[in-house]
């Protein structure tokens, strides 16, 4: 998987909406890609901040 492909589905991956096979491809890419891992980390941080902001 290339970064462009990963970026297309990374939100779905984060949201737990990908099937196991597609999720596995994303996980493998994330293991070796700092840029895409950073995007995932941002999504995770934002989610926590939003939830905390409304609690």
């Amino acid at each position, binding site marked *: 998987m290339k970064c462009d492909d990963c970026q297309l589905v990374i*939100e*779905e991956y984060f*949201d*737990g*909406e990908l099937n196991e096979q597609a999720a596995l491809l994303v996980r493998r890419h994330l293991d070796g890609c700092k840029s895409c891992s950073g995007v995932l980390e*941002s*999504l995770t*941080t*934002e*989610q926590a*901040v*939003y*939830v905390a*902001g*409304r609690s």
Partner: protein
Amino acid sequence: MNGSEDLIARARAGDQEAFRLVFERYSRPVLGFIYEMVSHRDLAEELTQETFVRAYHNLKQLRDDTKFSTWLFGIGRNVARESLRLRQRESLSCTQDIDSIQQEHTGTSDSPVQQLLEKEFNIAMEAALQALDEDKRVVFFLKVLQQRSYYEIAEITGFSLAKVKTELHRARLEMRRRLRLYMETK
């Protein structure tokens, strides 16, 4: 046994206590959902009551107890939309009650400065949410704040799955842009 499906089945059979428990369990998320649509706390509370009244009277029409939540949110959405249409017709303006938001969001951090920052962020987040258009706001709320699946969101809103994904992506971008300064300090 007070599992949701059991409660809903009992409520459908006319058990008022079961419906009261259903109300207790779901009223808060429904209120949050409606508030995202109407942006007014008192009105949202009123519409939440209306949602549960309609749900109570129409419980027998619910075909699948496991989809109660989706069904209930769908009623809430219709009730809120009717109210918005009515308000548009009457040209009522609705302003955000900042004071009530400030009272609701009390900081939990350990220093007054931190509490002030938390409060400021909460107000900024509220403003950012309200700046989203209705479709984005509802999808964002259901996914990010209520952790609903795309399928459930599509069922509740009537949107296609593709539209759910698009609106969610755009909502996240807008929220990120509006709250960037705050995010960088988190």
